[in-house]
């Protein structure tokens, strides 16, 4: 696959098929952690990291163990198992070898174990029958897209905090309304990548 193909996959997963704003995965952490820019960025960094590592681990398992034995239907449960233990392992590894990074990512690593965007991206890599390099690029893009969504929404939320919101909309209500508007704006990217690079 050419370099343009990789760029197309990257842009698609960041903008057009943004995992938070178009596919509506990881909404829980998106609403929960986006209040504070610092923790939002910490969470996003951890998500990018885990997504890539999880892809590297699950792709071979699917193509070398599950598929030859005709066990493709087991992918969800096996991937959950692998991702959960992988995150645990990475946590231990970081605690030992990079304590600074460990304290920076802090609580976010164990939280990601159950993040549906991570599971979503590895399952979709298989569904779209990407090769391993393509899968890695796709999960990298998904992670960056998550970070972009968090960053944008953090700005929107701080605006909401300072605005005079009518009483019935205060709190969670205005947050959800704002989230849907941000998501709507991402619909504008539809077709932009295939317009530039042709159908991928």
């Amino acid at each position: 696959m050419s370099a343009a193909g990789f760029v197309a996959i990257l842009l698609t997963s960041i903008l057009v098929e943004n995992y938070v704003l178009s596919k509506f995965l990881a909404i829980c952490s998106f609403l929960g952690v986006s209040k504070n820019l610092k923790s939002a960025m910490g969470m996003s960094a951890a998500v990018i990291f885990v997504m890539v590592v999880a892809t590297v681990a699950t792709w071979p398992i699917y193509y070398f163990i599950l598929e030859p034995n005709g066990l493709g239907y087991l992918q969800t449960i096996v991937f959950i198992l692998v991702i959960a233990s992988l995150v645990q392992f990475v946590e231990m590894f970081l605690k030992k070898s990079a304590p600074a990074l460990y304290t920076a990512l802090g609580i976010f690593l164990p939280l990601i174990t159950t993040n549906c965007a991570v599971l979503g991206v590895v399952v979709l890599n298989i569904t779209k029958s990407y090769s391993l390099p393509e899968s890695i690029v796709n999960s990298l893009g998904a992670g960056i897209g998550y970070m972009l969504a968090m960053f944008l929404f953090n700005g929107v939320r701080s605006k909401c905090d300072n605005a005079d919101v009518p009483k019935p909309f205060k709190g969670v209500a205005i947050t959800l309304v704002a989230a849907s508007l941000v998501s709507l704006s991402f619909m504008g990217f539809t077709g932009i990548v295939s317009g530039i690079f042709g159908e991928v």
Partner: protein
Amino acid sequence: MNGIVIAIIVVAAIGLVCGIMLSVASKLMAVPVDETFEKVRACLPGANCGACGFNGCDGYANELASGNCTEANRCTPGGQDAATGIAEILGLESGSVVPMVARVCCRGSYDNTGDKFDWEGEEKCTSSLLLFGGKNDCIYGCVGYGECADVCPQNAICIKDNLAHVMPEYCIGCGLCVKTCPSSVIELVPRSSKYIVVCNNCTRGREAMTVCKASCIGCGKCEKTCEHGAITLTNNLADIDQEKCVQCGACVEACPRKCIVEL
């Protein structure tokens, strides 16, 4: 049948590999945790309020365990129990902890005072105070937008009728509200003290009287009444020295503006 067996074997094998990998890793990568830290940390309440001056309870426990800090009595919420516990573990002097509570020294609710103008900006005390010393008639009083309530880790502060109230039963005396209040209208006082001056107005007589019905006018009657020399008048405002106060309550009777109160 065969398919099921293979499926079971594959999932079990993957689970086994993951399990073995994790247990080996947990042995290989075990990070020794300082036992003193764990013990000291267990003595602290875990409110993470920062009253000790360190970064949360973990930060304080870390400083104590590593020997950088030798004061065992810095945790106000934990009180004497925490101080004694820490001192026992580390072999330090426990020192004494005076249980403190935050009090709002203002009675400027809408019953007693009013607003100079309508404020339609950001509903925060600091923002309101930028313009003509705030929207209230009295520039020394509580603005009532509740920045203190926002920082309180215990949700012990409520805003009622444009005035902050501290609920002493929930207050842990961390002093975050005292640091936050832009009008400096909240004070930390010992829990044992019964009498406090609930006004912050530094102007005299007529001026103080016109802005609020419950203001200290600096008349000095309390100062003369107090036989123990516990009350002094500074900046036209009565101030009770809680160490000298014997809790007799004579000043409450004497105050013509009823701004010394019994708690």
